[in-house]
């Protein structure tokens, strides 16, 4: 179980070898493997503003530099700024000067300014005039280095395009060697430049000109000396901005608090997660930014039996301690569970008995081309060596399916069993023995490992097959506090 503020006492071993609490894990129903954030593919679904919940396509988001155009963050404490209304009294002096002509204009006008509820910074603090409309219209500060940044952008775009072109050319050469296919340009006698022109792409000449005219910036040995006042003038820390404040607006990096300017709010993204092995989605959120629901939500918490520590006797070197665990079946099907040592988990064998259809072989050939080198670098063997060893009882435990209504049922039934302490709907409590080796150091963290073998029913099989039962394994590591002296 994972806690909000406490350490994670029970960690599961992901298929990539990482140890994570069950709430941070995913379960791929197609590979029947546990996956974690480290070994899956994260994709950006949509961009939205977390404050006004406005949704925008990624092209627009890029154009707006991933910032919302109507919401702002406080430049002082980075909290979201709120718009506040005030009634602006018409100026007394002008009133008297112009006499009766402005009588009908006497009604106070609603004016708006930005204010931070956390640190009480307001847009008035830095002399930004109040606005007559509630949203938008706030003055934007121009980036003093805009031309240089654009130059750099053009330069790198040109380089990217050039590289792409070179790659294309190389590909074409490959085809030419094969001699089987005739490319469009070969057949029609079009040149590459003409084809680009027709396609509306910028000609390679313009990109090469961007590269040619680019002047790289030069580092200089000579640095302007600090003005005298840096040594003599007394510093008022309230007037100087902090490092985070400067870095929050990299374009201006204000050194003085009077130069702080509201920061356009950064957009958030909705992510979907994809299994890297089978390319199926593990999670997919609903598109609407206001919704916190998921269309696909394959979390380990809903598929893998959950283990919680109820209590344990203090771990002492060379002693045996009792350990009480609670097992929960989160699925809608009855589940058989066997406990075992992690080293007894059989090595996963290649599933060769799959029916070979054309689709499958096609998929396989596609997979062959897929780059799987990442997996070798990502995969690691978890360290599961511990001083404590759980004595594994040779029993098969049957856990009923989850039944939300059963939550309100009577007390737990007490089995007359040395291992099972009690049962209650889809949960049961186990009493196990932990043997600690005599070499355990007092004060060191005590941990024990355990593996579960469970029958998992895949209720949503591909293409109208009957639900299939699988025997799956999960290894987990329990934290049992420090070793007592």
């Amino acid at each position, binding site marked *: 179980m994972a806690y909000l503020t406490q350490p994670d006492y029970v960690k599961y071993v992901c298929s990539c070898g990482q140890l994570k609490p069950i709430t941070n894990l995913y379960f791929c129903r197609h590979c029947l493997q546990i996956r974690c954030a480290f070994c899956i593919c994260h994709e950006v679904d949509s961009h939205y503003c977390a404050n006004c919940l406005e949704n925008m396509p990624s092209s627009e988001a890029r154009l707006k530099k991933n910032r919302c155009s109507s919401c702002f963050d406080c430049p002082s404490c980075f909290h979201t700024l709120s718009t506040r209304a005030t009634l602006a009294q018409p100026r007394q002096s002008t009133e008297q000067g112009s006499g009766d002509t402005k009588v009908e204009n006497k009604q106070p006008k609603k004016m708006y300014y930005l204010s931070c509820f956390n*640190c009480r910074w307001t847009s008035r603090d830095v002399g930004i005039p109040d606005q007559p409309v509630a949203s938008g219209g706030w003055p934007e500060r121009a980036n003093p280095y805009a031309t240089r940044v654009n130059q750099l952008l053009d330069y790198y775009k040109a380089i990217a395009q050039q590289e792409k072109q070179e790659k294309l050319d190389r590909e074409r050469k490959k085809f030419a060697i094969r001699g089987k296919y005739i490319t469009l340009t070969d057949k029609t006698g079009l040149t590459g430049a003409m084809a680009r022109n027709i396609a509306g792409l910028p000609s390679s000449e313009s990109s090469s000109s961007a590269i040619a005219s680019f002047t790289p910036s030069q580092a200089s040995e000579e640095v302007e000396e600090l003005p005298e006042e840096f040594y003599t003038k007394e510093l008022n820390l309230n007037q100087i901005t902090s490092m985070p404040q400067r870095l929050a607006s990299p374009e201006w990096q204000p050194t003085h608090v009077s130069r702080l300017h509201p920061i356009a709010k950064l957009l958030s993204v909705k992510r979907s997660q994809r299994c890297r092995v089978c390319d199926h989605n593990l999670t997919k959120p609903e598109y609407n930014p206001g919704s916190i629901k998921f269309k696909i939500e394959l979390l380990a918490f809903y598929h893998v039996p959950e283990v919680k520590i109820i209590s344990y006797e203090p771990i002492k070197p060379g002693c045996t301690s009792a350990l009480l665990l609670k097992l929960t079946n989160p699925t809608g099907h009855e589940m058989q569970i066997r406990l075992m040592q992690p080293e007894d988990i059989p090595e996963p064998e290649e599933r060769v008995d799959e029916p070979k259809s054309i689709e499958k072989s096609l998929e396989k050939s596609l997979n062959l081309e897929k780059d799987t080198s990442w997996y070798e670098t990502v995969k690691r063997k978890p360290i599961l060596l511990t001083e404590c060893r759980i004595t594994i009882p040779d029993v098969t435990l049957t856990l009923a399916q989850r039944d939300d209504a059963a939550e309100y049922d009577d007390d737990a039934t007490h089995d007359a069993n040395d291992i099972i302490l009690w049962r209650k709907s889809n949960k049961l409590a186990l009493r196990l023995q932990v043997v600690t080796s005599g070499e355990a150091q007092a004060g060191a963290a005590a941990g024990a490992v355990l593996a579960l073998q469970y029958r998992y029913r895949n209720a949503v099989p591909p293409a109208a097959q009957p639900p299939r039962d699988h025997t799956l394994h999960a290894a987990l590591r329990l934290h049992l506090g420090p070793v007592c002296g």
Partner: protein
Amino acid sequence: MSHNIKILPGATVCEDCTLEGDITIGGGTVIHPRVTIIAEGGPIIIAEYCLFEEYSTIIHKKSDKQENPPKPLFIGAHNVFEVGCKLESPCGHIGESNVFECRSFVGVDVKIGSGCVIGAACSLNAPQTLADNTVIWGSEHHNREALEKQPSQMLQLDFLSKVMPNYHRLRKPNVHKRQTSRQSQEPIKA
């Protein structure tokens, strides 16, 4: 402890609050239920248009080097004490238009100017003097200087003084106007 509570006309003081010692409450001030104000080290004088929200605590602490007669604790006008804040002070003076946010704590040796904001859950223990318009916020007690005083809570006070009598038993003002002027003169002389 002698109980000498003076409530000036226009003040809204709920009955369900703890007021102990010599306390003067100025006109327009609103004191919510469950507020604790204890004047054990000397009188507490609260000026006009202050707002004391629920569970705020003001204690004028007894100190060893107490003068005789004891100096009053004077709380300036337009101060806002938000829910659950605590102020312990033997110092003679709290400026005006300060905001003590929820669950903030101001210890004994803190002198507070005007227009200051003590952020939610901030606690000031070390002896210090807050200059005017100091804003303190966050768990790391960041501070900055605001350009102007915090906007006054006049609308809120107006609303509360109209609505509170409908839902709470109130303590009646017990000082007449004539005495008022003399009372409010006192702290300035002191």
